[in-house]
């Protein structure tokens, strides 16, 4: 399997960006991205010439469009053609999402808690979503150094609340990148996981991950978000390995599902890859915290001491590209079944104790309903 570094929210001068697609692609490659989604406001005209730019820069460009409406902004990616953003009022977004799905795309809430009109027209999500199962993802981190911002904290809480309610929704970051500007703020990356056999398209010498597979990965929640190392996890249950985005069946032993007896312990393998986007990030030495969180709250916290900076030259001065940890969680019981689990990396960045990275969820089917949305 391989994880592709993606920037999922960008603009060009085809809407209100101040960059061409070529300038955007060049900047994305410099920052270590393997794929971007072009999500101009209400137009897809900026995609003209995309294949040539993809070849030139070795970058996959996913077609997309940010619905820039009166009651919210919605990023839509992977569509074969245009879906009309101008229909319907505050309660009409379900039909819009259905149309995006009909055209092969997926839809996510963009910066749902950014201040709305008149400061930023339509930026605050005010749509009444009838069916949260239809929402594919939420942009929980918007902008640079996103984790410390209040509006993003609210978005992260919205995501967690929806997971707690049993919905299976992915979470991503998006820079909402409008221009090539130098910033010394940490840049967030959404990693999407595609299979090895899927990571190349065609028989050409240029092997780019295909946009369809990236879309499928995000639709299935195979996503991890970070301003530093790539944090991933797998879960062992019933003699099988369950990756991020998967749903563990209820009848397996030790899954924390609704088995009447307290189940066997759940084993989680956590992995931190420090070699990603080498030279493009670093974090000060400290005792980092690796946490496992679920609908039952924080279930485990492991100390991860690093005497020196991490990033650039691996972990804490060592030539260590990858760090693995295991954690064991108790099985759960009927009273409080575990329905989802994610990993988070916490530490102090520029004086603020904050999330550095998080995975999307592994889900647990319940016996009653046989689990989730998709």
């Amino acid at each position, binding site marked *: 399997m391989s994880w592709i570094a993606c920037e999922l929210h960008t603009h060009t001068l085809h809407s209100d960006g101040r960059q061409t697609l070529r300038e955007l692609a060049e900047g994305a490659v410099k920052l270590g991205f393997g794929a971007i989604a072009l999500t101009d406001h209400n137009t897809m005209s900026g995609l003209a010439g995309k294949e040539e730019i993809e070849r030139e820069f070795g970058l996959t460009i996913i077609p997309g469009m940010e619905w820039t409406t009166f009651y919210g902004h919605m990023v839509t990616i992977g569509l074969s053609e*245009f879906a009309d953003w101008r229909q319907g009022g505050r309660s009409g977004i379900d039909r819009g999402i259905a149309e995006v799905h009909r055209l092969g795309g997926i839809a996510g809430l963009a910066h749902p808690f950014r201040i709305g009109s008149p400061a930023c027209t339509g930026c605050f999500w005010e749509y009444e979503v009838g069916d949260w199962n239809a929402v594919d993802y939420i942009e929980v981190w918007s902008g640079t150094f996103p984790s410390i911002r209040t509006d993003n904290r*609210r978005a992260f809480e919205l995501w967690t609340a929806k997971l707690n309610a049993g919905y299976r929704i992915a979470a991503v970051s998006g820079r909402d990148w409008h221009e090539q500007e130098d910033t010394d703020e940490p840049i967030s990356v959404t990693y999407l996981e595609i299979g090895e056999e899927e990571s190349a398209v065609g028989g050409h010498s240029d092997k780019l991950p295909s946009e369809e597979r990236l879309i499928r990965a995000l639709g299935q929640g195979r996503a991890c978000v970070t301003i530093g190392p790539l944090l991933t996890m797998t879960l062992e249950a019933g003699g099988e390995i369950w990756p991020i985005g998967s749903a563990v069946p209820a009848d397996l032993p030790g899954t924390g599902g609704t088995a009447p007896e307290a189940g066997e312990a759940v084993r989680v393998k956590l992995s931190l890859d420090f070699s990603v986007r080498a030279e493009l990030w670093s974090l000060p030495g400290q005792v980092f915290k690796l946490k496992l969180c679920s609908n039952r709250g924080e279930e485990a916290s492991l100390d991860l001491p690093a005497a020196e900076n991490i990033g650039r030259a691996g972990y804490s001065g060592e030539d260590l590209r990858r760090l693995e940890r295991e954690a064991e969680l108790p099985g759960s019981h009927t009273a409080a079944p575990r329905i989802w689990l994610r990993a988070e990396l916490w530490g102090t960045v520029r004086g603020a104790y904050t999330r550095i990275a998080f995975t999307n969820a592994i889900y647990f089917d319940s016996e009653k309903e046989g689990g989730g949305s998709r």
Partner: protein
Amino acid sequence: MELLDIQGSAVPEQSRTHIRIPFELQAGADRMQIRFEYAPKILEDREAALDLLKESYERYILPEQREQAIARADRHLPLKNLITLSLDDPNGYRGACHRHDPVQELFVSREAASPGLMSGKLEAGTWIAMLSLHCIVTETCDYRLRIRAVAEEEPA
């Protein structure tokens, strides 16, 4: 040939509405020339702007952070009107120009188009110009939309 010259005046109550303007295009056009403008762009009355912002903070910002937001309200000033144009030909969407410029000179032709709009055949029939009034903050905002069809032999 002039296809359309429409002027109007929008008020804040029209925020979050679309104005749909159909027009007919005859066969034989090589280029469609669009001029779209509105004014004023900016709400100059600082007190009025702060009042509008305070109202929006009530809606969008957590109670414990409103005071700080009001103290930092300047980051959201000046407040601006925003009207954007999108275009449909007889077969469907031809793009939008979502940007803040209050005067926009745009064109569409078979080979090329202004950023945001899509080049392609200029099919005869009913086209629609849609003005999306995202936000009107001034007492009134005057807009004007002019569309001309140009044939090659005719000077633009």
